[in-house]
């Protein structure tokens, strides 16, 4: 018996096994990369198309068989886009609304998340439940009621109307509260023993520990402001308050109803650039979490 087992063990052809293993590893790696490559192409193709379209002449753009590389690079499209659409003004408007609403929204989110995560008060659970329940209502429904409210407050065609209605986001509060709740209770007690006030504890301990979440919220909020379309169009679509998405919609259509698409594409490329840069710079925060290894057990 023992002899047999040894024979079986000895007779294994290690060379063959190792060759099969190498081949299968290579194949699985090849398949993975091929899949990733195809997906990347699918994702990146619209961007590519936007860039080359923005560099074409209108005539080339209108050809029945599209070209994959512009015959003549029209960098002037970008300059034209910037001036005809008053992109500068649109940028400033959007930046203003985006920054103010992000900052205010962060303050509100952090404070309410802290209250729901840490403070003890009557009706806390009920209030939080009610807040969560509002997440069930589709956003479009709010548009109607918000429109009426804003109209009655006399906020039409002001930045206030663009900023205030969306300052409180239940989803962000929920997200941050969950994050805060993961911070161990002992840290709070330790800070209490050390004479730290709630606000200081929030600022010195909780916010640094929840930084990845806060950065995600900032990015999402900024993107929301940048991409918002329906609401600004409804309440503040005049020249002084126009946001970038609405500005782009009609800026390049001439009196005959003909749109200059390459220039419009150039404008879209310019508008996408800031968000793209923000994502590129902050992606490490979006992906990673802070280690919590100060706590054992």
């Amino acid at each position, binding site marked *: 018996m023992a002899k047999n087992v040894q024979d079986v063990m000895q007779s294994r052809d290690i060379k063959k096994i190792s060759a099969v293993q190498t081949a299968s590893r290579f194949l699985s790696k090849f398949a993975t990369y091929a899949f990733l490559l195809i997906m990347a192409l699918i994702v990146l193709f619209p961007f590519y198309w936007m860039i080359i379209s923005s560099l074409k002449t209108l005539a080339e753009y209108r050809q029945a068989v599209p070209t994959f590389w512009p015959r003549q690079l029209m960098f002037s499209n970008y300059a034209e886009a910037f001036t005809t659409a008053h992109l500068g003004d649109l940028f400033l408007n959007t930046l203003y609304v985006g920054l103010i609403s992000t900052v205010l929204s962060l303050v509100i989110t952090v404070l309410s998340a802290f209250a729901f995560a840490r403070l003890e008060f009557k009706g806390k659970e009920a209030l939080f439940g009610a807040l969560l329940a509002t997440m069930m209502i589709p956003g479009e429904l709010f548009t109607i009621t918000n429109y009426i409210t804003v109209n009655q407050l006399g906020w039409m065609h002001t930045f206030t109307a663009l900023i205030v209605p969306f300052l409180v986001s239940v989803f962000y509060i929920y997200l941050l509260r969950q994050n805060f709740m993961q911070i*161990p209770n*002992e*840290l709070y*007690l*330790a*800070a*209490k*023993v*050390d*004479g*730290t006030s709630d606000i*200081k504890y929030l600022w*010195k*301990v909780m916010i*640094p*520990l929840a930084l990845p979440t806060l950065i995600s919220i900032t990015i999402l909020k900024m993107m929301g402001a940048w991409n918002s379309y329906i609401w600004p169009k409804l309440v503040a679509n005049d020249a002084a308050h126009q946001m970038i998405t609405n500005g782009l919609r009609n800026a390049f259509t001439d009196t005959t109803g003909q749109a200059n698409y390459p220039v419009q594409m150039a404008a879209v490329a310019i508008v996408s650039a800031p968000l793209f840069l923000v994502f590129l710079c902050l992606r490490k925060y979006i992906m990673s979490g*802070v*280690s*919590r*290894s*100060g*706590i*054992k*057990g």
Partner: protein
Amino acid sequence: MKVVLQNLTKIFPSRDKKSGQEVIAVNDFNFEIPDGKLVGLLGPSGCGKSTTLYMICGLQKPSGGKIFFGEDDVTELSTENRGIGLVFQNYALYPHMTVKQNIMFPLQNLKGKDKLTKEEMFDRTLNAAKLVQIDELLDRKPSELSGGQQQRVAIARALVKMPRVLLLDEPLSNLDARLRLQTREEIRRIQRETGITTVFVTHDQEEAMSISDIIVVMKLGVVQQIGAPQSVYDDPKNLFVAKFLGTPPINVLEGKVSGGKIYIGDEAVLEVTNVDDQDIYIGIRPEGIEPNENGVLTCNLSSVEVMGRDSSVISTHPASLNPIVRAIINSDIRIDTSAQTIKYNIKPHKFFIFNKETEERIYYEVK
């Protein structure tokens, strides 16, 4: 700074709304912790030792009774004004701060006339770090430290504001066995050097006995016995204390007193005076019985465990409440392991008897 606990009581409201049963975590605790002593609160989990500690530091409000630091009544005083240092079981270091920032954190919260300059803060941080021997590690993050080092940082953070009382909640339970021995010596050394009144909570009796000046044994919120470790070990007031202290644990047997003699089974093992006839529990320390051919107690011999300096003789007895009766003897004494039975003699000062109903100690005199 002495700490006085006066009728200290903590009642938690019931979790279970139907029965409405309240939980008495700490029941009428009276104790004066002398200045500069190291006191170990000892008991099984759920005995109220941590609750007592949290009441001393002010994180939990007593339901009744008073707490004094020195002559000052601090019962209503908030935690940060009590001047205490607290070390948590899991250390509770701030993970995003370096060791230096962690230790300095309490100093940055000082206000008014206590406010320190940056240099003073750094000096005190460095001194605290030197005291616990981590001054090399000031720029590391907690995640880059071992468990023992994290523990030291936590102690330094508790000491840096020069507290009047130092409180440690299960300080060693997250360390491995070797580190635990080392760290408990360390805690003893730091406590001696600073002379700070220290209370620490543990469920490990060996830990409590080895470094405490005074131990307080608790059970279900009630203090069982307070005293120096050796005196509590030598003179337990009831069966619980006798069973809780000592490794290996005390041998417990059923027996009776009849006509001035203590019987285990049919054997009269000790003649005593001034004890009435009754059924009793008997506790004998493992070092309290020794093999002797003419011994008074006969057990069935199972095996002998050799541990180097000592040997453990394992035997069984029908009256024993533990699965085995263990005797610890000098390993020079040879035991014939082929024998079926073994006879022991009894050392009366290691031999305690307890009332069978109340489990309180019955004191006797040997005839």
